[in-house]
């Protein structure tokens, strides 16, 4: 384990434990309630298009708000300042609009049960296999790494044993996902989302008011920390070390669209909606709270910096090796600002974010494994009862493997660092495959497969040939990036471009599918859903425009 010092220990009182216990009882209760609806494997794994849209919308963002996201975004706030909002305003919201308006008609209309299954319907078995396999592996590792991060933090701040906190939280997630499947995971994500907002917002308000509001912060910090765009012109001028092209094309286009438009973890939530309208509205409704999340998760990190400079009694935690331990910013702020009682709510919120992330991973993993790997390659044509049982066993296996990964991470830190670098670009080429597959009917099955494979290899090659912050460059040292973030953005851009070009070229020389095979899968041969009858606030286009206008205003305010 990396050597870290606990700068601040938090002491919990019985009332804090009572709040945590109430939360545990509640999520288990929801699992119990959802259990009654499980009769088939699709009830368990996909919720069979039955969830109301307000629920899928909140689950859509909550599944992404894992503990690593909360801790990491607060840490980035302290490290990079307000530029961190790019991960939301540039790196999430536009892609959420795109998937709702343009892609959901094909995802939902295809009646596929998963993203890999869509690839099977649109292309063929080999593209599905490649995507299902990379997705399954990635999901387990992400879930384990997140668990490791949380276990470490709880040990450091609360003095809880790593094993006990990891096992306790894993067992609770396991019980409620096993009882009620995807429905119980989604329903709980709604509660977890509310808890995250209500548990972290007071911290933001308290830290901000202590620091003298936004004006107080701006006057105390360097201007680079309080302007999102003004210093984005040159990599050397901003704390992230990124230039505009890398930022906009890498984060704003490839990585963002790759994640929000093709990652089954989030797409699954929209696909569970009870109608095509609901599926399209899901990411659009979700875009509103997503836009304002930075005020809850990033702002406290920035305020922490200002508090430190004004000698208020708050100091940034230090690592044993020297330097600031930004990952402890969130918990140390809580320790300083929250009295017993509210502290229990705050820690419950942290626990909730961890569980929503983990349940998201587990419910996406079990669906992809059961339908896209087991049913397709190991045992097709079995009765549905069999797949329900396999789905349940996979749920247990997913949790056990996550816990195993969390322990692996305690011994092999470097491997985990490396895997995170790899996962950062796995989804990048996939977005080129989808863009061509959904909007160009000439795209062939061979084109998609070879394009995707080349894209992945190109990403791995770029990582092995370039260096940033002393990482990467295992094969040769061809180029040096100003920061790891810049390297990450450029790997994504290269990987996406290679996938796009290879898919195009191979498609032109191979046989495309016939139009009748592509019905409901591709633009041009699909009857698009009609929205004329619906009121304006339920139609995708007006909603999308409202989101875009609000987004522009927010960016101008924090320019």
């Amino acid at each position: 384990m990396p050597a870290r010092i606990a700068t601040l220990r938090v002491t919990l009182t019985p009332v804090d434990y009572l709040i945590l216990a109430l939360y545990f009882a509640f999520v288990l209760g929801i699992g119990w309630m959802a259990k009654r609806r499980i009769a088939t494997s699709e009830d368990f794994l996909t919720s069979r298009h039955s969830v109301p849209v307000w629920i899928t919308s909140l689950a859509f963002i909550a599944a992404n708000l894992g503990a690593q996201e909360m801790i990491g975004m607060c840490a980035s706030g302290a490290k990079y300042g307000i530029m961190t909002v790019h991960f939301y305003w540039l790196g999430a919201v536009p892609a959420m609009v795109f998937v709702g308006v343009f892609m959901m008609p094909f995802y939902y209309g295809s009646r596929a049960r998963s993203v890999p299954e869509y690839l099977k319907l649109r292309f063929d078995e080999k593209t599905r296999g490649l995507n299902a396999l990379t997705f399954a592996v990635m999901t387990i590792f992400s879930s384990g790494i997140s668990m490791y991060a949380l276990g470490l933090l709880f040990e450091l701040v609360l003095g809880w044993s790593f094993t006990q906190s990891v096992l306790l939280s894993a067992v609770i997630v396991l019980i409620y996902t096993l009882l009620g499947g995807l429905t119980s995971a989604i329903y709980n994500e709604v509660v977890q989302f509310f808890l995250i907002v209500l548990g972290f917002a007071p911290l933001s308000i308290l830290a901000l008011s202590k620091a003298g509001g936004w004006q107080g912060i701006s006057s105390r910090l360097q201007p680079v920390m309080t302007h999102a765009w003004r210093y984005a012109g040159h990599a050397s001028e901003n704390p992230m070390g990124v230039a505009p092209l890398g930022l906009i094309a890498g984060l704003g286009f490839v990585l963002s669209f790759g994640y929000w438009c093709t990652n089954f973890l989030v797409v699954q939530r929209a696909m569970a909606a009870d109608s095509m309208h609901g599926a399209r509205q899901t990411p659009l409704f979700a875009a509103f709270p997503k836009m304002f999340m930075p005020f809850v998760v990033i702002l406290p990190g920035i305020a922490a910096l200002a508090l430190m400079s004004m000698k208020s009694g708050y100091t940034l935690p230090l690592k044993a090796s020297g330097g600031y331990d930004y990952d402890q910013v969130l918990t140390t702020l809580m320790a300083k600002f929250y009295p017993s009682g509210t502290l229990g709510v705050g820690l419950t919120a942290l626990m909730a974010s961890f569980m929503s992330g983990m349940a998201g991973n587990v419910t996406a993993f079990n669906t992809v494994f059961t339908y896209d790997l087991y049913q397709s390659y190991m045992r097709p044509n079995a009765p549905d009862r069999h797949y329900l049982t396999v789905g349940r066993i996979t749920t247990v296996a997913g949790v056990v493997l996550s816990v195993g990964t969390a322990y692996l991470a305690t011994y092999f830190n470097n491997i985990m660092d490396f895997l995170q670098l790899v996962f950062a670009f796995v989804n990048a080429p996939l977005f080129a495959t989808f863009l061509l597959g959904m909007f160009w009917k000439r795209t062939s099955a061979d084109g998609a497969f070879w394009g995707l494979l080349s894209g992945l290899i190109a990403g791995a090659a770029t990582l092995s040939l370039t260096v940033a912050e002393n990482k990467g460059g295992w094969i040769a040292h061809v180029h040096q990036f100003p920061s790891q973030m810049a390297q990450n953005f450029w790997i994504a851009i290269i990987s996406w471009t290679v996938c796009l070009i290879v898919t195009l070229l191979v498609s032109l020389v191979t046989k495309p599918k016939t139009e009748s095979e592509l019905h409901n899968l591709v633009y041009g041969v699909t009857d698009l859903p009609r929205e004329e009858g619906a009121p304006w606030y339920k139609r995708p286009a007006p909603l999308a425009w409202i989101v875009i206008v609000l987004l522009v205003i927010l960016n101008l305010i924090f320019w």
Partner: protein
Amino acid sequence: MDDLRRPTGLFFSLLGVVVLVYAMIRPASRAALDPGVNVNLWVGLTLLVFGLCLLWLSRRAKS
């Protein structure tokens, strides 16, 4: 499945009551950086009001 607003509303109301009661019996429970107000009182109240709003929405939808 039952309307999710009801159990969620009950949960947040209960959470609010717990924090509010604690705020009243232990008004001296303050954090290191004390903003000068009883944080628990405001947080408890917010949780309770939020919970009650959900319960009200659920009732309204039923009738």
